Structures are given as structure tokens and as C-alpha cells.
């Protein structure tokens, strides 16, 4: 815990805890996915979540998003003013890149990205879509990810990699305090992988937004992450948090 506090040297503000877990445990069926998980991740950290398939990485992110309730222990999200919230307690504060993207297949890429900011408006203001400047911004983010020419295509007409980038664009457009990205680069080529992770890294370093990102490639972990949360297949619910050696 104490070691983690010194890692985020790029953060604009003095690092304060953002995500705090105390004795967190999650049981699916009769198996503990993780247990006794204690961590305090400072604001603006890039945390790589690693471990073999089926070990509970996605479930851990789902707990952070407030989509799953942990079996035991506590999970706190501290806001910038030090107030403590439950996971998912502040609408729009958590941005998720889901493993299966969860885009609306029969909407355009642009509409899907615009969904990222629905939480900022009451429903009656989004009945006829978001304001013009929001649409321009969403378009620019899509352009950044090389999707400028396809903004008006339906999602179901685009490729897997394009859908994944759209899901990332939706999270970036949302500008959440906490990014939860579940294998966000699994369908992207080397160039786009570097680009996407670079942008997420910047979001953490420059804007003090915390990133939890499930990654499988150790080189990418070394290149982009500051902290590594690894789930261990050996023990029942074993886990480890370490700093990346090169930082």
C-alpha cells in the first residue's frame, strides 16, 4: 500500500487514494476468484490487471464498476474532495470498455460514442440527442482513432477492431475519473495498440484519471503500466500488487 503512493509522479495533484479495497473477496460458485484483496491505488495511476483467463480479472473490474457485489470486504471510490462513494455510486464517473464492447449494434459509431456522456444530462435533454459541440468532440475522438470516415456507419456493419475502438472512444468521450478497460486492445494491430494505450496512459498521467486495464502482453504491461495487479492461478483467491520495475 505504501509503496503504491509514491508511483504517480505525473499526476497534476498530489497523489491521493482513488480506489481503496479492504479485504475484498469474490466467490463465484464455490471458488474464490480473489480473497483478502487490500489495495489503495492513487489517483492518476495506470494499473495493469494480469492473470490467466477465467481467473477473475473481469469480475474484479465488474466489482469496481458496481456491476457485481463483492462477497466480502469493502470497496471504496474516493472522489477528488475526499468523499467516499460506493462503486458506481456517482453516475458517469466510471468509464468502462467492456470485453465484448457492448455497443448498440443498430446505431452509428457516432451515436454510440455520444452515449458516453448521457450521464451528464437529464433524460429530457437527451431525447433529441446531445448538443452540437458535444457531437463535434465525439467526432474528433473517433477521427483520432482512425474512424473519421465511418462515423455514420452502423456498428454491426463494422469490423471487430473498429467496434473495439468505438468502445474506447465512448469511454474517452465520457472523460470518467476511473477507466475500467477489459482487454481494450485485443482486436487491434501493433500501431493502434500503442496509440490506444498511449492515450490511456496520458489520461492517467496528465489528467489524473485512474486506469485499470486488463492486459495479456507482458511487454505492453512494462511499457505502459505503473502498477500491476496480478491474479495467481496457484492459490485459492491469491493476488499480488507490484510496481513495474522500469518505473
Amino acid at each position: 500500500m505504501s509503496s503504491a503512493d509514491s508511483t504517480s509522479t505525473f499526476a497534476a495533484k498530489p497523489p491521493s487514494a482513488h480506489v481503496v479495497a479492504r479485504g475484498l473477496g469474490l466467490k463465484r460458485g464455490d471458488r474464490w476468484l480473489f480473497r483478502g484483496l487490500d489495495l489503495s491505488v492513487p489517483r492518476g495511476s495506470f494499473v495493469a490487471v494480469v492473470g490467466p483467463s477465467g481467473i477473475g480479472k473481469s469480475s474484479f473490474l465488474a466489482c469496481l464498476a458496481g456491476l457485481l457485489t463483492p462477497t466480502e470486504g469493502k470497496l471504496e471510490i474516493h472522489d477528488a474532495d475526499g468523499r467516499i462513494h460506493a462503486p458506481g455510486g456517482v453516475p458517469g464517473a466510471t468509464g468502462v470498455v467492456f470485453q465484448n464492447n457492448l455497443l448498440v449494434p443498430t446505431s452509428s459509431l457516432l451515436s454510440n460514442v455520444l452515449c458516453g456522456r448521457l450521464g451528464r444530462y437529464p433524460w429530457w435533454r437527451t431525447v433529441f440527442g446531445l448538443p452540437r459541440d458535444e457531437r463535434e468532440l465525439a467526432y474528433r475522438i473517433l477521427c483520432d482513432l482512425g474512424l473519421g470516415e465511418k462515423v455514420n456507419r452502423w456498428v454491426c456493419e463494422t469490423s471487430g477492431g473498429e467496434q473495439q475502438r468505438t468502445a474506447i472512444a465512448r469511454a474517452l468521450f465520457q472523460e470518467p475519473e476511473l477507466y475500467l478497460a477489459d482487454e481494450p486492445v485485443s482486436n487491434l494491430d501493433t500501431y493502434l495498440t500503442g496509440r490506444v494505450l498511449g492515450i490511456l496512459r496520458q489520461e492517467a498521467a496528465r489528467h489524473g484519471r485512474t486506469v485499470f486495464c486488463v492486459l495479456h502482453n507482458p511487454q505492453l504491461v512494462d511499457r505502459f503500466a505503473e502498477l500491476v495487479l496480478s491474479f495467481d492461478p496457484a492459490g485459492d483467491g491469491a493476488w499480488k500488487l507490484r510496481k513495474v520495475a522500469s518505473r
Partner: protein
Amino acid sequence: MIPRDSSNPSPSTSPASLLGAGLVSAAGSAGNAAPGSPPEPPRLPELRWYERLNVLGVSLIIFLLACAASTPALRGSGRQLDYVGNLRRFLGYFFPPDLSVWPETLRALAETAQIAVMATAFAIVIALPLGVAGARTLAPRWLVTTSRMLLNVIRTVPSLIWALIGVAIVGANPLAGVIGLTFYSVGYLGKFFSDAFESVDLEVARGLRAIGAGRIQAFQHGVWPHAKPLVWSYVLWMIEYNLRSAAIIGYVGAGGLGVQLAGYQEYYQWEKFATVLLFILVLVTTLDVLGEWIRSRITRKLPRSRA
């Protein structure tokens, strides 16, 4: 009717066992099998007769039994009638169609279309909330039961009866037709809309909730875009259906072509009656082709849903 399994050939002569023997001998030549005791080839497990019955089979049997029990409906009046001659004589009345009535037929046709369009429009407005309320994935159980029950009751009443109720309320004019067909269409559209909403994968909407969208926003942006093409193709079907219904409800005075049909029938003006039928035929065929084309254009791009 019931499949029996007594027709199995004995194992020694069945093609399957011959094939099995071939395999065994091939394995034997490779030196695996002990000579003298050839291993038993795996036998295809035969199903017992009752294991072969599934819902399709059972309902088919019930249908065939129902057919056997329904022959009395074919008895007719019991008198010796010249069926073919009757048909020929009656159809002969229709020819040649008296096309001179085209102006009033065209006017009635327009009125029929107006009734159908207005009824469909009102039905959409009423059926959409009922459809949401009837979708098991979106509404609580008690609401689903209530909504579906209501829709069932509405569907039970034929369109002609609904038109009759309309006539009783507002008198014999096209408004009665609109009222009648509105009720009738709500019964169908409500059910179709429920099915459309149920076929939408709710995971996407839940995802939107997780990133901050409210309930209504998650519905509007996560469920509606997926349901919209289905909803619209049902609406097109309903317009088509209502046009056909609107042509008949005039029989009880609710406006449109039916009024004309009833009048010509009353005075045995079958040549004019035939003209009206021709107009209906052209209209319905056109709409059928057009609607089919639009529907295929709409749903072609849809991803395969789980429903």
C-alpha cells in the same frame, strides 16, 4: 402414426454393423485386436418409441386426430346440389366487371386508405406503452400479465365486431371504422411490440447504465435503436392488414369500400361488385410487394438477434 422400433433390421445384417465390422477388421490388420475375440463394435443406441416423441410429433398427432374428428364439417346441407354448376353460375355474374363505377370506387378506396392509416397511427401510440409493459424483459411481472391479458382480450374480438362497436358509438361513418380498427390493431401491435422489445439484448442497456445513463436514457439509446426496425416492419404489416380489414368493415356501415360492396351485393350488382374486388386486389398486391421490399431493406442490416 406412432413410430415403432420393431422395424429394425437385426444387428448382423444392418449396414451400420457391416461398416463397424470393416473398421474392426482394419484395426485387426494393424495388429491391435486379439485374434479370436473381435471386440464388440459400438452400436447406435436405438430410441424407444416414446423417446422419439417431441412436441412437434405429439402436436402433429393431435392435429391428425382433430382432422379425423372434424369430418362432420364437410357434410354440407345433405341435399344433392350441383356444386360445380353453382360455382360457375355465381362466378359468371362477376363477368365482365362493370368498370363504369370506377370514380366512386376510387373515392371509396381513398376513404378505405384514410381509415387504415389513421387507425394504424392511433394504434401505434396506444400499443407502444402496452408493448413495453408487455415485454417480460422490461416490465415487472404483474404489469406483463395485465398487459398481455388485455391484449389477448382485444385480439379475441374480430375486426367486424370492433367496427360494429364503433358504429354504435359514433354512427355509420368512417370515424367508426377508425375507432374499430384502432382497437383491433392495438391487440396485434401491442403483442408484436412486446416481442420486438423482448428480442433486444439488454446487456447493452445495462452497460449504458454502468457508464452513467439513466433508465429512460438506457431505454432510448440502448434498447430502442435495436427494436426500432422490428417495430417499424410490424407497423408496415399492420397498415397492409388494416387496408384489407378496412375494405370489409364497411359491411357494418363503418365507411370505405365495404359500404359499396354491401350495396352492390344488396342489389345483386355483381359486375360492379367485381370491379371493387379488382381494385382491392390491385391495392393489396401493390402494398404487399412494396411492404415486403421495405421490410427486407429495414431488417437486412439487423444483426442476428438471439430471439
